[in-house]
């Protein structure tokens, strides 16, 4: 069937009307409908030219296109089905419900699968058990429900699917949801972003990997508005959210490498060749997809250097993969590739030794020496301990300790042997690491010369660059960068609080700049029992692409604390890193990167300096539309020039192509709520530092109101007047609850109880976590374990099957139940007070609820299936996401310690807590705001 929809001008959609056996054409911007094909009809269409018989249908379609909130509440499931138009063009679509929640259909790992999906495969979002949340109605019922609203004669559903069935259809269908009648469904968060519907022939490769996976790079809008005024109408912020150095989990494909150093780049805009260029002139030249420049194809482009024979250019990785790595020739080096360098600064003051931090840290380094990346045998390591003096270690056959007490003007006591080759000095290093804790066991010195230690470490490595790993248990008190205890409970929760989140001493900014220049990246591991000024200290990682890790009140006597730190620290040490990296994002003409969020130093208008890039760090970049875009699609290309930790200069290129649109409804229908929430988290934290915490919250709230107002006034029939509903497009329906979660996150929450260190750490997380970790961090996951479906916790064909996630409301808690709440950083096992002894026995190996104690716990694995299933769920929770985090497990008793209980319950963000509104109250206030503007 040659469908007329394929030749539609932009802004038009076609719907198959089965009753009349012909297409109905809809101008999506105005809602105008007609039977004539818009191209065939030259003069401006008038409704009166339509056959009178269509008036009923017309008005109906108008509603379908716009508001009709009441029916749309149920569309969630139908939308989630793989779009039949793309699965198999021309085939009859399958009923949606059947594919969505099929038990056992889940892929290797539900969380990854959404990211590793090749287009055209069904999406196993979440292993759906037998029990479904009641508001997810079975398919048949939906249809029934719907037909109540649908006027006879016009089968909207059939029309909709008929349209979807046509291959090449580019239009997005916009579904409106009334937020007031459709409660948030946690399953929605596991869905992939709205599909990227590129025009045909945009891509020269048939490869399913030709466009970037969302886990590498995603955009807040998957159909870019052609003008900034259109973007302003939608009020949706335009930004990229990217994790160019994403880790590879089992089942992920490795990034293909182009080894022949033939790198084709545009002469004008320096874009790397990618699947979206066009070959012209018989394949001798290529046209740049960003600036339209015609470039010569390099001579060796079609030459296979491995076999020394003519090769097939269509096999080249850079033409088939959106994510590739080029091995860089010498032009891309300012110096020969540096070796990886790890300098450890270990706090050995009294509190550090007493908490067991020194023992755990040295043992972890010792155990992980073999995991530190050192494929080329060039990796160098140094150790410096510090309290109020510095202790250097000359590492050789007879290691010795050199004490430097002059911390005002730091010098290196010895020119050699302080920074040693890991492979060559493995044995002396191991013996030294085994002895450090004993050396300082009786240390009674209190105080920390962290600043001078940093300067010493910097001196040691500044010629090479690398990683400076700081382990500190106390507030820096002497020398450069000394800080004062500025924690003041009186100003918590007031306007002055944001001052506590800024750097107290300029040292932490100037030193960060020095580090960035010398290619030194700082990682902070912080352990203090008392105030440590995480806010100031986290500035160093922030500007040097490092990461802050915080273990409040660390005590290695608790095996859980020691295990968590050792695991995370070990993984950080073993992590492959990118050294001496610079990142630049290029985009098609008319688009400009306007502001940057994340851990790096902005070295020029669009160049981000990152001395050592860890895996799974996320960045957000806002985009401005500077001039009208005339192309049917645009391309964003991120290039990270870096040195691998085994001494090879490489360029990692991530290419994302997105269609453009002139149509406001497409902008809404293609918005990606996960990316928007990630961007808002970054912007809110930035605002809380430059303004006040309250301003940051207001800003996020106002952004959401703006989007809702824009949607109401342009996409619903309600227009500017008051409306009984709160409408938003279906793909954005989780945005309000994500914003609420963000407003209730420890990093931003309105409260006078949050210690500044905890707050500062949460803010560091909000600005560096990739979406996969950030979303649970602001919208936790909640399972009911006591009545989980029989297959949950068992190993399915795709790993451990998880129970269905529940909405985050304490209404779901039951007095006799066992529940799990987790945000990726902490896991709570909530035990109801009437839990039957058998349950306690099966899970905790204890006779009854009364003897169960709340707090951190290592759950025993017992000889009964339920215990094993619960353990499997917890295990999976700890492993299913990217990143090094190993969440603590807390047992929370319903009538247990109030602080712990409140902490766990604060994760249930649909509830009301103190001054913070419940989800219903939040929606009501949103509705009032929206109606009053």
């Amino acid at each position, binding site marked *: 069937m040659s469908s007329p929809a394929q030749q539609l001008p932009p802004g038009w959609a076609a719907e198959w009307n089965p009753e009349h056996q012909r297409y109905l054409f809809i101008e999506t911007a105005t809602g105008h409908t007609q039977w004539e094909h818009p191209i065939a009809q030259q003069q401006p269409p008038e409704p009166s030219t339509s056959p009178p018989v269509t008036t009923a249908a017309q008005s109906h379609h108008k509603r379908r296109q716009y508001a009709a909130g009441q029916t749309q509440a149920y569309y969630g499931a139908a939308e989630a089905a793989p779009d039949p138009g793309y699965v198999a063009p021309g085939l009859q679509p399958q009923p949606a419900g059947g594919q969505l929640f099929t038990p056992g259909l889940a892929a290797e790992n539900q969380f990854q699968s959404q990211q590793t999906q090749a287009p055209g495969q069904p999406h196993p979002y979440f292993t759906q058990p037998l029990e479904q949340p009641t508001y997810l109605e079975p398919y048949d019922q939906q249809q029934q429900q719907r037909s109540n609203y649908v006027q006879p004669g016009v089968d909207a559903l059939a029309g909709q699917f008929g349209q979807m069935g046509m291959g090449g259809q580019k239009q997005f269908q916009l579904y409106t949801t009334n937020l007031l009648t459709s409660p948030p469904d946690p399953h929605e968060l596991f869905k992939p972003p709205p599909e990227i519907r590129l025009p045909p022939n945009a891509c020269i490769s048939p490869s399913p990997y030709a466009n970037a996976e969302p886990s590498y790079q995603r955009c807040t809008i998957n159909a870019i508005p052609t003008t900034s005024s259109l973007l302003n109408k939608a009020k949706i912020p335009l930004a990229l959210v990217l994790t160019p150095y994403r880790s590879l989990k089992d089942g992920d494909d490795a990034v293909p490498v182009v080894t022949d150093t033939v790198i084709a780049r545009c002469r004008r805009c320096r874009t790397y060749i990618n699947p979206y260029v066009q070959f012209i002139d018989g394949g001798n030249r290529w046209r740049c997809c960003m600036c339209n420049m015609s470039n010569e194809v390099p001579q060796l482009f079609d030459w296979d250097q491995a076999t020394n024979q003519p090769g097939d250019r269509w096999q080249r990785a850079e033409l088939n993969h959106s994510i590739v790595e080029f091995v860089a020739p010498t032009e891309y080096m300012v110096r020969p590739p540096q070796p990886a360098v790890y300098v450890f600064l270990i706090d050995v003051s009294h509190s550090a030794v007493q908490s067991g931090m020194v023992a755990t840290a040295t043992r972890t380094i010792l155990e992980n020496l073999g995991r530190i990346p050192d494929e080329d045998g060039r990796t160098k390591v140094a150790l410096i301990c510090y309290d109020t003096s510095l202790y250097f270690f000359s590492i050789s056959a007879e290691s010795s300790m050199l004490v430097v007490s002059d911390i005002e003007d730091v010098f290196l006591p010895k020119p050699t042997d302080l920074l040693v080759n890991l492979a060559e000095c493995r044995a002396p290093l191991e013996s030294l690491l085994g002895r450090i804790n004993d050396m300082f066991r009786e240390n009674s010195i209190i105080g920390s010369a962290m600043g001078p230690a940093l300067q010493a470490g910097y001196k040691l490595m500044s010629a090479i660059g690398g990683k400076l790993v700081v382990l500190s248990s106390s507030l820096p008190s002497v020398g450069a960068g000394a800080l004062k205890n500025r924690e003041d409970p009186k100003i918590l929760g007031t306007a002055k609080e944001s001052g506590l989140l800024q750097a107290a001493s*300029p040292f932490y*900014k100037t030193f960060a*700049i020095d580090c960035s220049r010398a290619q030194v990246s700082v990682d902070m591991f912080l352990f203090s029992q008392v105030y440590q000024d995480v806010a100031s200290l986290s500035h160093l990682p922030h500007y040097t692409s490092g990461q802050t890790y915080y273990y409040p009140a660390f005590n290695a006597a608790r095996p859980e604390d020691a295990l968590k730190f050792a695991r995370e620290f070990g993984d950080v040490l073993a992590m492959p890193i990118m050294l001496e990296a610079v990142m630049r994002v290029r985009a098609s003409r008319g688009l400009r990167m306007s*502001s940057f969020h994340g851990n790096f*130093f*902005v070295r*020029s*208008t669009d160049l981000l300096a990152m001395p050592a890039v860890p895996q799974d760090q996320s960045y957000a970049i806002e985009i401005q539309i500077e001039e009208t875009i005339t192309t049917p699609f645009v391309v964003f290309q991120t290039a990270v020039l870096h040195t691998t930790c085994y001494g090879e200069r490489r360029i990692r290129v991530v290419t994302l192509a997105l269609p453009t649109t002139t149509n406001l409804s497409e902008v809404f229908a293609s918005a990606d709520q996960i990316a928007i929430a990630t961007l808002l988290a970054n912007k809110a934290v930035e605002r809380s530092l430059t303004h006040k915490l309250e301003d940051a919250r207001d800003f996020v709230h106002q952004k959401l109101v703006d989007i809702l107002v824009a949607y109401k006034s342009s996409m619903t029939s309600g227009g500017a007047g008051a409306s009984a509903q709160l409408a938003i497009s279906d793909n954005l329906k989780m945005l309000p609850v994500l914003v609420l979660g963000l407003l209730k996150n420890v990093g931003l929450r309105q409260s006078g109880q949050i210690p500044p260190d905890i707050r500062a750490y949460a803010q560091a997380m909000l600005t560096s976590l990739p979406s996969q970790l950030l979303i649970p961090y602001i919208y936790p996951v909640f399972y009911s374990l006591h009545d989980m479906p029989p297959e949950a916790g068992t190993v399915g064909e795709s790993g451990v099957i998880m129970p269905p996630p529940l909405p985050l409301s304490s209404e779901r808690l039951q007095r006799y139940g066992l529940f799990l709440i987790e945000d990726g950083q902490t896991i709570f096992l909530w035990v109801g007070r009437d839990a039957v002894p058998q349950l306690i026995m099966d899970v905790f190996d204890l006779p009854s609820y009364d003897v169960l104690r709340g707090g951190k716990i290592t759950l025993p694995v017992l000889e009964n299936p339920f215990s094993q299933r619960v353990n499997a769920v917890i295990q999976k929770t700890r492993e299913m996401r990217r990143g090094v985090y190993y969440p603590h497990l807390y047992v929370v008793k319903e009538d247990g310690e109030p602080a712990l209980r409140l902490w766990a319950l604060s994760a249930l963000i649909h509830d009301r807590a103190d001054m913070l509104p419940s989800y219903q109250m939040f929606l009501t206030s949103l509705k009032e705001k929206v109606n009053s503007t």
Partner: protein
Amino acid sequence: MGSAGWLFLFGVLMAAGLLFCMVFFIIMFSDLECDYINPIDLCNKLNQFVLPENIAHASLTLLFLVFGQFTAFLLNLPLVLYNADKIRKKSHMYDATEIFRTLNGHKKETFLKLGFYLLSFFYYLYRMIAALIAESE
């Protein structure tokens, strides 16, 4: 030439100096936008001039007060207070880590100061000539 004449001659010269200082700032900011200079060097360079500029302006204002030129003093007072407030908040120096985010604000401020010094320049010039004429009569 009487004291008022000399004072305003001095004012004219100072305003011209401050004017050039602002022009230099603006040139440096546009260099930064064109990537001719990196933010670290830019901030190191500009920060050398921030305090001298503030001090020069404040001392000129003080001179007006000492010599009883209250109109000129009151004209300059808001800017002195503004600068003093920035120094008190320790936000007077340019921060290389934030410079790109705050660049638009810096540019706006520098342009406003430029305009202010330009107006002051002509005002002092006028007052100087007026003082000279008054003297010769």
